[in-house]
């Protein structure tokens, strides 16, 4: 089989803080194939954005990659210089950040920002670039794109700004798109449009996508596989329908149960009791054990690695075959 477009092996990210070193990502490995969409979900603060930032080389200091390797298209990219990485970021990796305002310059019009970005990545006339920019705005569903070309970011609604950021990420036809909550600020109909766009890119251009979102509906519809993160590690990873319909890890089970639905109104939404541990204070054994309804002795002592179950993998002792065998 061909090598994956992106491979992340044993990634470890640390933040030195006033209260000692905080391990934001701990020994995490996964890959994304060409044309594949990997959904990433998990507890708020689990490390989804930091994982994305590590891949594009934009970790905020003092955060740093303290271990592991990242390869893109066969090239190792976690140890490149800032300048080398900057070139790759523009051309090969397109990033859509969680926070649309920081990716847009408030002083320049939307149109100008798109045109400049297009011109830095490909050689064409200004008029061509302008045409391409308008096309991109239409693709991401900005109404009357031509007329709103000269608007400033603050003149757009939250969702419209988010779509401009998506357009910016697509300027250079990247091989990998890291989309961090790209549809969070968007209503369902625009969401559908953006999802259709991401799908077309992956199918027709073979673009690989890492899609971070809290919206399981979006994941169900878009992703091929899904990774579930908890406290800086992968709790579960597997084909999307399997993870949604037959979640293995008790955290994933809780997460799926918390999704509100339309059809039977309930007084209180279902929640997982307790909070994710602070990263400087992760319990020994399985990080989920204080909140896990299925925890047993071993969970409080030994940390589980990913264990294959069905066609997924889950970091949970419930699926340790040895234990089953020993019991039989």
């Amino acid at each position, binding site marked *: 089989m061909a090598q994956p477009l992106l491979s992340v092996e044993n990634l470890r990210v640390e*933040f030195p*803080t*006033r209260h000692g070193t905080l391990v934001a990502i701990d020994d995490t490995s996964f890959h994304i194939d060409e044309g594949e969409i990997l959904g990433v979900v*998990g507890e*708020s*603060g689990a490390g*989804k*954005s*930091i994982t994305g930032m590590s891949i594009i080389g934009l970790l905020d200091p003092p955060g740093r990659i303290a271990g592991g390797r990242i390869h893109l298209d066969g090239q190792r990219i976690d140890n490149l210089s800032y300048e080398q990485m900057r070139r790759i970021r523009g051309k090969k990796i397109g990033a859509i950040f*969680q*926070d649309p*305002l*920081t990716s847009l310059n408030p002083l320049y019009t939307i149109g100008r920002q798109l045109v400049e970005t297009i011109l830095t990545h490909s050689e064409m006339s200004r008029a061509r670039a302008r045409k391409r920019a308008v096309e991109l705005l239409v693709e991401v*569903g900005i*109404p*009357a794109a031509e*007329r709103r070309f*000269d*608007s400033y970011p603050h*003149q757009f*609604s*939250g*969702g*419209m700004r988010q*779509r401009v950021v998506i357009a910016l990420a697509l300027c250079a036809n990247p091989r990998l798109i890291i989309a961090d909550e790209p549809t*969070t*600020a968007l*209503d*369902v*109909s*625009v*969401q*559908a*449009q953006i999802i*259709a766009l991401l799908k077309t890119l992956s199918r027709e251009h073979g673009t690989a996508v890492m899609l971070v979102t*809290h*919206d*399981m*509906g*979006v994941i*169900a*519809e878009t992703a091929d596989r899904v990774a579930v993160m908890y406290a800086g590690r992968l709790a579960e990873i597997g084909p999307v*329908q399997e993870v*949604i*319909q037959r979640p293995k890890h008790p955290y994933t089970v809780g*997460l799926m149960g*918390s*999704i*509100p*639905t*339309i*059809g039977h*109104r*309930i007084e*209180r*939404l279902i*929640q*997982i009791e307790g*909070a994710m541990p*602070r990263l400087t204070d992760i319990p020994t054994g399985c990080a989920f054990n204080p909140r896990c309804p299925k925890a047993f002795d071993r969970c409080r002592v030994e940390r589980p690695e990913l264990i294959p179950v069905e066609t997924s993998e889950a970091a949970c002792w419930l699926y340790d075959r040895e234990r089953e065998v020993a019991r039989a």
Partner: protein
Amino acid sequence: MPEAAAAESGGGGKTARETARETARETDAPFVSVRGLAHYFDVSKPWLNRTLEGAPRLILKAVDGISFDIPRGKTFALVGESGCGKSTVARCVVGLYRPSAGTVRLDGIDMASLKSRREIMPLRRRLQMIFQDPYASLNPRWRVSAIIAEPIVAHRLMTDRKAIRARVDELLRQVGLTPEDGVKYPHEFSGGQRQRVSIARALASNPEFLVCDEPTSALDVSVQAQILNLMKDLQKELGLTYLLISHDLAVVYNFADEVGVMYLGRLVESGATEALFGAPRHPYTRMLLDAIPDLEMSGRARVPVAGEVPDPIDPPSGCTFHPRCPHADARCRREAPETITVDGIRLACHGIEEGRIAAVARGKA
């Protein structure tokens, strides 16, 4: 002189505002009452360009004549496509934008009558807003504990430093963070954690009315459930009133008592949540509900809302939804529909008024 202004300058005795509030309570008047609210943005090119290039003056009617009430202790939700004007309504309601037309009354007080900062402050404390963009609304140079304590200090709700600290710690715990998180700066938090900080700050001044613009869309579903349950508990305990903006229709369905569906700056359908979701009538509401992604992939095809979102600067004639509506006819293209009430649901649609479109009960979504 407006009555609320008199209230502020009045010394002893019962102020006009207190009287107003009492009458409001007695008559069960809604806490929030919005009538004919409009807000226009001038998006023309600068004067010089207009003169030189002959560019026309361009007005964007972000909100164009909206009326709704929110009873005390209830939740009203606004839904609708991106750019339809939800945040603009929110900003008018909390007084960040001055309406181009219409009135906003909070607890019987006309917002437009409050002129000076001194008049506005007492009302300000009673309402808080959670912004759509948590990054922009948190001061990056302040520690989180100071950010949360700010409304308490600004409104002099507490003066004892120990008491303030205890309150901040309590708020941090309520939103699922820990007191130790108080010493950190906003950039040290993830997106969802920052949103929780802004929720804690909004709750700090014990507001009676909270405007929440996408309060939980940055949160994972489990933390979202925690926050929404907390907001519900507070509502029950303290009788809080909420204006909720969310694109997540499942959240709205479970959380709001009433829903208003907006399209291009207007309300096209509004009413009790269950009635509206159970049998949507307006063609736009139906499209919106059909566009919800399906988790079970149960075969119900997700129907994307058809057609282009129109240009708000140059909206279509008549019913602005007509270019995308399967039921549009000549009258729809000509005449803007009036709001009518059918079975307690307020609707603006010729097709429904003429009996051409019947409500359809939705199957289990």
